[in-house]
């Protein structure tokens, strides 16, 4: 600004015009703030120079300006600042923008301007002379510059190298065209300034790059290089290689930094891609295997990486150079087939996978290892060795072991169930078949598995719909006490069908429990309850019944003797007094059936008395024990009694019935009340005989057996007839008090219930019956051999 103040406008203007005339160029001189103060085009005078934008606009391609002027005007100099000396003294600099400028037409201005300035500074000198010299000098310089610039431009375009110049004082940066191309920026829109450039490097680690560059250039005058990133207009990141060199003043002060920039995005990207791919591979490999190994053609390990030491407890250097055979020699049996196969594979140069080995580490810990490997060959097909991976599968092996253990445990649980457990899938195929099912059907698991339920377990054929319902509704289906025939006996079972809905596998489990014993026990308990209540009732009633009964029967007794006893003195006296005769009276009574009526009264009375007597026996509490008796003797005595039993009207002839005895040798004497047991036996023989008689069977037979039931420490008596048998409804009620199949008035319906009571309550034994219509009946009496503890 000093300069402009010192010079008269007209003089400056004159200079411009003169130079323009001589060079054929436009010439302008810029003042402070970038205002054009003199110009060969007078209309431009006074216009404020807008900076780099104007230069790039092409309106002014080059202008002379001192560093100071440039700093003040905000115009960036792109190019080199050549010191200009006069008489050994630096008086200014010449701006050269060789890569940028399209023309060197303004070269001279620089010197002119400087000269002008010079002139102003050294006002006593001859300005014109100086100017002339300057012009001569500038012409020389122009020629040199033009050649140099051309060369540089060619090189730059060829190598896609951009040139930049950074003026540290102003922060202005000048770019060659190539830099714009490299950074994909529009010269018309982007004004390169250190700050605008830095905004294109938003990465934190690049924040201080400009400062670093200054520092580096300050510390060393040697040129250097660096890599940088640049945010491109399309949002992608470009990578660049830059060189730099500082520009210093006489005192060595750093004035500017210049350099080149080269686009290396392509290389950088491929390098990054390579790095990524490598790291990916490393990650994949690491997650797939614990370590990698390589073998040479001699099958010795050449290279190991990864966690081998951690897993095997061996440092890789102890493995390298050895063969697998050498490493495992101490812990393995190489004769084992899997090792034989493995060695054969290796020697045949074949790939292998998942070769599993148990390894005992030097510290004694056991590990399971897994190897896979692939042979590799050179271009000529020569075997070079193996590459492969190794892994620690101890955890997996452990899990497998635990899984197996758990499975066995569950199978054991299922098998130890006393129930039949059958698993079926949705289509009725068997998926599970436990021990009880095998035992019950005789079909082994292997045979049942996968077969249709219908085929293997036909008696569940009717249950398929139930199974489907259980699966469909996801509710268990229960059916209790289902009767079924087996070996001529009725068995009962509870069936439960549980739907299986876990893990999306549809199916069901069928559970069958034999509850025959429970059902029988229940029946017995019901009987006992009934009898005890009958007994209680009878005990209360007996006295009240017996007295009037005695009045009736005893009176009938006396009545009979008074009417029919022809020798009784009282009778004779009375007849005589009345003028009757015993004979006539007897004939009359006979005629009118009176003796029969009296007999009927007697008979009915006796039956009534028996009923009361029988009912009363239910009131007796079990006393247990009794003296020891040989059951065979008791049976034989009872059979004799039955044969001579005429107390009832003869409905059967016991002598015609065949008795087949089958007595066990080892039967010990049994503690019991012999009279009561005989009563029971007699009752059974009578009932059986009557039943056989009524069915009119030709060959009537009793099979009488005794045997020992070892498991329950019971002596058993079986009395089996070949009579008509009975159906289930009768069988279930046969021990009930007052239940009878005989015509009204024939039986009391108490015989068997009394027998039942005697056996179960008094002797703590059991009495059961097995029968089917047309197949006879078999009564089984079981008596404890050891007397029960109950008093």
């Amino acid at each position: 600004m000093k300069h402009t103040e010192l010079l008269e406008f007209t003089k400056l203007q004159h200079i411009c015009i003169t130079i323009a005339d001589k060079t054929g160029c436009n010439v302008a001189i810029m003042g402070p703030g970038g205002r054009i103060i003199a110009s060969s085009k007078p209309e431009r005078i006074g216009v404020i120079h807008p900076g780099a934008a104007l230069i790039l606009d092409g309106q002014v391609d080059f202008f002379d300006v001192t560093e100071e002027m440039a700093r003040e005007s905000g115009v960036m100099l792109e190019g080199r600042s050549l010191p200009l000396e006069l008489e050994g003294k630096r008086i200014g600099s010449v701006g050269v923008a060789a890569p940028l400028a399209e023309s060197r037409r303004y070269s001279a201005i620089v010197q002119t301007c400087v000269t002008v300035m010079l002139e102003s500074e050294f006002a006593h000198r001859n300005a014109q002379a100086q100017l002339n010299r300057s012009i001569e000098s500038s012409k020389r310089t122009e020629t040199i510059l033009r050649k140099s610039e051309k060369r540089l431009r060619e090189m730059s375009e060829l190598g896609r190298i951009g040139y930049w110049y950074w003026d540290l004082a102003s922060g202005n940066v000048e770019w060659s065209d190539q830099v714009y191309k490299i950074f994909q920026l529009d010269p018309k829109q982007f004004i390169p300034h250190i700050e605008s450039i830095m905004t294109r490097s938003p990465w934190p680690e690049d924040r201080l790059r400009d400062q670093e560059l200054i520092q580096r250039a300050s510390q060393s005058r040697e040129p250097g290089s660096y890599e940088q990133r640049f945010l491109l207009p399309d949002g992608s990141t470009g990578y660049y290689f830059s060189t730099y060199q500082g520009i210093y003043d006489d005192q060595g002060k750093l004035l500017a930094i210049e350099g080149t920039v080269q686009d290396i995005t392509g290389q950088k990207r491929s390098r990054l891609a390579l790095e990524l791919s490598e790291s990916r591979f490393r990650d994949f490999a690491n997650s797939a295997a614990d370590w990698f190994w390589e073998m040479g053609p001699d099958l010795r390990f050449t290279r190991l990486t990864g966690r081998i030491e951690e897993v095997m407890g061996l440092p890789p250097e102890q493995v390298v150079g050895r063969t697998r055979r050498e490493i495992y020699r101490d812990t393995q049996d190489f004769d084992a087939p899997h090792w034989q196969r493995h060695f054969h594979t290796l020697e045949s140069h074949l790939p292998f996978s998942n070769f599993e080995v148990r390894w005992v580490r030097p510290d004694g810990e056991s590990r399971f290892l897994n190897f896979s490997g692939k042979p590799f060959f050179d271009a000529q097909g020569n075997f070079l060795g193996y590459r492969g991976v190794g892994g620690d599968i101890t955890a997996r092996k452990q899990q497998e072991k635990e899984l197996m253990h758990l499975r066995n445990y569950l199978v054991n649980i299922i098998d130890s169930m006393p129930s039949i457990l059958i698993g079926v899938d949705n289509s009725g195929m068997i998926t599970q078949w436990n021990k009880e099912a095998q035992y019950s059907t005789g079909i082994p698991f292997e045979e049942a598995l996968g077969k249709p339920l219908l085929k293997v377990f036909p008696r569940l054929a009717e249950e398929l719909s139930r199974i489907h319902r259980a699966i469909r509704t996801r509710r268990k289906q229960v059916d209790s006490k289902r009767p079924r025939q087996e070996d001529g006996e009725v068995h009962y079972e509870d069936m439960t069908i549980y739907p299986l809905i876990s893990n999306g596998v549809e199916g069901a489990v069928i559970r069958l429990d034999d509850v025959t014993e429970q059902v029988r026990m229940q029946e017995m308990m019901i009987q006992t309850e009934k009898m005890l209540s009958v007994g209680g009732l009878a005990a209360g009633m007996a006295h009240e019944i017996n007295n009037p009964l005695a009045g009736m029967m005893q009176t009938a007794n006396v009545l009979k003797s008074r009417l029919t006893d022809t020798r009784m003195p009282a009778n004779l006296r009375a007849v005589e007094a009345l003028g009757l005769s015993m004979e006539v009276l007897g004939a009359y009574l006979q005629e009118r059936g009176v003796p029969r009526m009296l007999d009927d009264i007697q008979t009915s009375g006796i039956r009534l008395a028996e009923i009361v007597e029988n009912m009363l026996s239910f009131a007796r509490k079990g006393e247990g024990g009794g003296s020891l008796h040989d059951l065979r003797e008791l049976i034989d005595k009872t059979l004799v009694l039955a044969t001579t039993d005429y107390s009832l009207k003869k409905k059967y002839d016991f002598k015609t019935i065949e008795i087949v005895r089958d007595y066990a040798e080892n039967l010990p004497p049994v503690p019991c009340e012999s009279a009561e047991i005989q009563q029971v036996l007699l009752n059974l023989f009578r009932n059986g005989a009557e039943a056989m008689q009524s069915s009119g069977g030709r060959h009537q037979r009793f099979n009488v057996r005794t045997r020992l039931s070892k498991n329950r420490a019971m002596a058993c008596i079986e009395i089996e007839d070949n009579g008509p048998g009975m159906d289930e409804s009768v069988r279930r009620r046969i021990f009930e008090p007052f239940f009878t199949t005989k015509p009204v008035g024939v039986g009391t319906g108490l015989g068997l219930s009394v027998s039942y009571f005697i056996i179960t309550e008094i002797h703590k034994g059991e009495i059961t019956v097995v029968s089917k219509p047309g197949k006879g009946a078999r009564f089984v009496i079981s008596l404890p051999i050891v007397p029960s503890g109950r008093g």
Partner: protein
Amino acid sequence: MRTLLILDDDSAVRRSFCDFFEDHLWDPVPAESGEEALTLLQSVRPLAAIVDVRLPGIDGNEFICQASRLMTSLKFLVCTGSPEYRIPDDLRRLPNLCPRVFHKPVIDLQELERELIRMIDAQGTCSECG
């Protein structure tokens, strides 16, 4: 005539016994209660007594106890309608009490009579004991 005390509160039973023994040439003396029977014993001297147990007032056991003191020669035979009846221990020691208990209804009255005669015929030895 052999006098026989019939002690039973049931009139039909009592009368059937009286009728039967009358026919068999006994002299039955009926009594409805123990108290009445004890009073009767002051005027009559029966050889034996058929005794019911459940009675209004004193029961058969008590009657036997008192009557055996009043009349040491009197024989007793229990005939009861209670099936659970057992001779009490203190009475069991009495030599004039028939150990066999008859239960009502007595289907065979002749058997009862025979038992009575057996007891009466054994009087000599038994009274010495008593």
